[in-house]
């Protein structure tokens, strides 16, 4: 299985979770984070201007689709990074 991690501006939240469903993720985990990057510091004091980190455990092919769409549709528009890593899950059936 693949763990896809997305760190992005909070305003992208709905767009990202919608995309996750579309590409076939069965769930996600999300939490607010603070960050620094090419677009400057993002302190986590105002929810609307903060960052969120979204994690989704998905099948490799889903990860492909997900990262693909993120790269083409989302990166040009939102402050975001995304990366993928290999994980061994329990009950792989559910993902």
């Amino acid at each position, binding site marked *: 299985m693949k763990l896809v991690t997305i760190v992005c*501006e909070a305003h992208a939240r709905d*767009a990202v979770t*919608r995309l996750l469903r579309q590409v076939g993720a069965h769930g996600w985990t999300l939490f607010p984070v603070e960050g620094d990057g090419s677009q400057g510091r993002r*302190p986590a*004091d*105002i*929810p*609307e201007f*903060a960052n969120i980190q979204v994690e989704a455990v998905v099948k490799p092919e889903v990860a492909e689709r997900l990262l693909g769409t993120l790269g083409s549709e989302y990166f040009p528009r*939102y402050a975001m990074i995304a990366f993928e890593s290999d994980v061994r899950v329990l009950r792989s059936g559910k993902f």
Partner: protein
Amino acid sequence: MEILDAIRANLLSPAVLFFALGLIAALAKSDLKFPEPLYTGLTIYLLVAIGFKGGVAINEAGLGKVWLPACAAMLLGALIPLWTYPVLRFGGKIAAVDAAAIAAHYGSVSAVTFIAATNYLKAINQPFENYATAFLAVMESPAILVGVVLGKLATKKSGDDSFTSLKTATHEALFGRSIFLLVGTLVVGALCGEAGMKKVEPFFVTPFQGVLALFLLEMGIVAGRRLGDLRKVGPFLLAFGIVVPLVNGVVGVWLGRATGLGLGGATLLGVLSASASYIAAPAAIRMALPDANPTLYLTSSLAITFPFNITLGIPIYLEVARWLYS
């Protein structure tokens, strides 16, 4: 020199000084910042308190008095983007989608600016219609929707995508946190009336001014962080962020008078018309027009118009009203 005294009085109020302190904290790179839940808690408190108070006022005044100016306010909100868009587009040579986004922000309203204005009027014992909160509630969404449509026309996207995002924008604009709290507590207040107010007054009314001061401290920090972006937005937006509020403010005051509001109420309608949204609008616009550059609309509304209004704007709009009503 009345106007100067009014401005000085406003500048020396705790609310404005706390805002200034926040600006300094941001510029001095102090590690002072409010935790997000504290910020959110304060916004919830302020919106609920102002909404409930407004509802109780409607309950007393009766809808008969409120509907006309409320509709006028709504219309005003919807129209502002229609004249600011061309100004930005052709006057400022700003990209269509960005012009639409900025126009939406100036048609929409800033609750905190409105609250600061009511506090200012209370401080100088200028009576006003408490149900003016209703205007705040109805003015937030229309401009956002108009702006989004303008932006969509400008950037023809794949039907489906643009459809979803227009839908999300509408939902966001109508059921977003701030709108929902304002409208909801307005209704609750209207149902409770004075009897209910008595019970919650010590929490929602008595400490209100102090809470606002504390909140403006954080707003100062948030606005201060954006001051660095002033360079990026260029002189046109700088002027835009001060001139447009003045124009809209005068129009708002005039409209208030035309629809039968008192001096205080007309001033508040002027403040609403002059204010630019920096929370509700950015959230909706970011979803519906993700191609618009946030630096432009956030910096102008949050780092230029908001500070201008709560320091100089509010007393000026009051003077305009005084002059109109004399």
